[in-house]
Structures are given as structure tokens and as C-alpha cells.
């Protein structure tokens, strides 16, 4: 499976934020998008996900996963991706486990159990707490657990490590590495090093 962006341009409110972005990702590869504030990293991720219209160029996903991997054809990038934005997309009034169980049921393609996913982000045993009681870093980790409960080959991560401490960052880069080893793809926009070995780099905000 390949994610290909050609001469991609994005705009917000009629102003071109970036243009001429091109990259190709294969199974198991990661792309780290860096650049100063306002250079269009988040916009790029939203354009890739299909939340914002493509102003110019194209982004598409090619090739289907092997059937023996339990894969299926993905008609669009949106159906093949997990989008982790600035917000965690969790309800403060529900417990962490309820939140995760909902996303697991809604997104389908269940992978890890809610408990297992929480264990792997180091939040084991707090599934019963309301999401609103958690600290910023714990909320982010719970949102990361959302990536694990259902399977998607492509992860679109927008500042995924915002609010995480060192240990959690290391654990998260472990999770990302494992996702890549299993043939997944990652596009991450960040200011901080993510600890992804062999990731491609894309610097935005420069000419071209």
C-alpha cells in the first residue's frame, strides 16, 4: 500500500497555506513533517485526511492490503487513516474505557482490547475513571490508545507528543515503531523529535 501526494496544495479561508508538496510513503515508512508555526503542518494533515478540500494536486492511496493480513480495500485515504488532532476526541463525562469502547465499536476493525490498549500506553487500571479527571498527559495517552483499539494502516498524527513526559514519549515512539514494523504508515507533524528511526523528513514553510 502506498500513500502518494503529488504537487499538493492547501488553503485556509482562501489563502494558500502551502503548495507543491509531494511525497510517497510505502508500507512501514514514516514521514515527519516539521516547520515553523503557521507553515501549514496541521492543514497538510487535514488535507491528507480529506477534512479539508485539496486546493491543487492530488493525494491518494494505492494498492490494497494483503487479504491474509486481514486487510480490506480502502476506498479513500479517510477510511484508511487514524487522525489524531489537537483535540483528543474523548468525552469528559464518560469513563476512559467507555470512550475507547465507543471508538472501537464505531471505527470497527478491532485490534487490541480496551484494557490492553490502556496497558500499552501505561494507563492500565484507570479505565473506570471519567476522562475529565485525567491530566493533560494522561488524556493524550488515552487518545493514543484510541489508535490501538482499531486497526488503520495510516496514522495521521498532529503534535502527538504534546503534553507527554519523557517516559511516555519513549513508550509512544515504541508504539509507532511497532506500527511501522507491522507495515503501517505514519505521517506526523511535530516540533519535537519523535524517536522514529529512518523516518523521512518533510520541512514545510520553505520555498517549494
Amino acid at each position, binding site marked *: 500500500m502506498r500513500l502518494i501526494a503529488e504537487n499538493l496544495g492547501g488553503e485556509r479561508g482562501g489563502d494558500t497555506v502551502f503548495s507543491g508538496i509531494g511525497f510517497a510513503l510505502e508500507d512501514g515508512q514514516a514521514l515527519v513533517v516539521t516547520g515553523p508555526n503557521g507553515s501549514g503542518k496541521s492543514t497538510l494533515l487535514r488535507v491528507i485526511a480529506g477534512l479539508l478540500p485539496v486546493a491543487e494536486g492530488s493525494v491518494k492511496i494505492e494498492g490494497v492490503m494483503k487479504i491474509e493480513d486481514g486487510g480490506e480495500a480502502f476506498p479513500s485515504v*479517510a477510511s484508511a487513516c487514524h487522525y489524531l488532532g489537537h483535540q483528543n476526541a474523548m*468525552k469528559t463525562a464518560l469513563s476512559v474505557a467507555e470512550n475507547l469502547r465507543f471508538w472501537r465499536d464505531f*471505527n470497527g476493525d478491532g485490534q487490541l482490547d480496551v484494557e490492553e490498549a490502556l496497558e500499552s500506553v501505561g494507563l492500565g487500571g484507570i479505565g473506570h475513571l471519567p476522562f475529565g479527571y485525567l491530566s493533560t498527559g494522561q488524556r493524550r495517552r488515552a487518545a493514543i490508545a484510541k489508535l490501538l483499539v482499531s486497526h488503520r494502516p495510516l496514522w495521521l498524527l498532529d503534535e502527538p507528543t504534546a503534553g507527554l513526559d519523557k517516559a511516555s514519549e519513549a513508550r509512544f515512539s515504541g508504539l509507532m515503531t511497532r506500527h511501522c514494523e507491522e507495515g503501517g504508515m505514519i505521517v506526523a507533524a511535530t516540533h519535537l523529535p519523535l524517536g522514529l528511526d529512518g523516518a523521512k523528513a518533510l520541512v514545510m514553510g520553505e520555498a517549494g
Partner: protein
Amino acid sequence: MLALFLRDIRLNIRAGGGALTGVIFFLAVIATIPFGVGPDLKLLARIGPAILWIGALLSCLLGLDRLFQADREDGSLDLLVLGNDRNMLALTVLTKCLAHWAGSVLPLVIAAPLLGLFMNMEPLGIGATALTLLVGTPAITFIGAAGAAVAVALPRGGLLISVLVLPLTIPVLIFGVSASYGATANPDPFLQPFLILAALTLFLAVLGPVSAALALRHGTD
């Protein structure tokens, strides 16, 4: 879809107040009418169904702005929109509407017979009004979903939603009230307006979520 329905119902119960606010507002509207109109019991009984319908309609509009806004604020809406290929967005919206109706509007329908007593209505009239409310209020929620989807990005969208939605709910109101009258006033028919009301609900159950889904897809800025 069931998961979404259950989540929204849970949120409605736990996050507090959605249902209660509507019911209290409904109570406030109905309770003030007799003071304003005066102690003419006959007059009250005559305008009862109309007042109940207007009260329920306004209470329905009250909570509509939160239908998508809460999801937008915490980022869930993006993910619901992204799930379009797996769970058609219009169906997602329909599910959210049903959950909203069950959580916030159904209590109004249940409270309506009680409030009908305030208006000195006879049991048959109360029953008919409650039945028309039960059938007609989903239509208001479906229209409201389209309005809420258009106004989702606006910080104080509640007022705009009411202004957008109110004219569109007039047919529902007209047929709802005329069916309620038809049950008690002898020459007036009950079944015809009631069936049109049911048809309106079914029609809007398709049109509302589809247009709301369109608005949401293009509003994810």
C-alpha cells in the same frame, strides 16, 4: 451505530441537564400562559393543544445547538466525518438525532399530558396532543439537525439555529395542532392531518440528516 446511540444517550444523562432544561422551560411556558390569558377555563381548553405544541416546539429548539457543537469542540466530529466510508455520515447524523430526541425531546412528550392539565384540557384532547407530539417532534429534531450542522462552527449558533429552523417547522406545527383539534372538535378530521404529520416526519428523517451530513462535510474547517 448502536454504540453511537448509547454514547449520546449516556452523555445526555450524565453530562446533565439537557433533558431537564427542556422540560423546565416547557413547564415555564405552559405555566405562565393561564396567568397571561386569565382564568377563562373554556378559552384555556380551546387553545390548550396549540399552546402545548408551541411550548414543545420552542423547548425542542433550546438544546439543538449542542447537537454537533459538543462533538466539534472535542474533535469527535472530525472522526465522525472521517468515518464516512464505513458509517455513512447521514446515518451517523440520523443516529445522533434519534439519541437527541430520545434524550431531550421524549421527556417533553412525557411531560406534555401533565402540563395539559394546566390548560384544562379533556383527557381525549390530552391523549391526542401527546400522540401528535410523539409523532411530530422527531421531525423538528431532523430539521434542527440541518440547522445545527450549518451553524456548527459559530460560537453562539443557538439563536441562528432557531431563526433558521423555525420557519421550516411551521408545517409540522400546523398539522400537529390541527390533528390535536381534530380529536376533540367534532367536524374536524383527526386522521388526515395526523397522517400528513407522520409523512412529514418520515420525509424529514431522510432530508434532514442528508442535508446535515452535506453541511458537516463542508464545514470541517
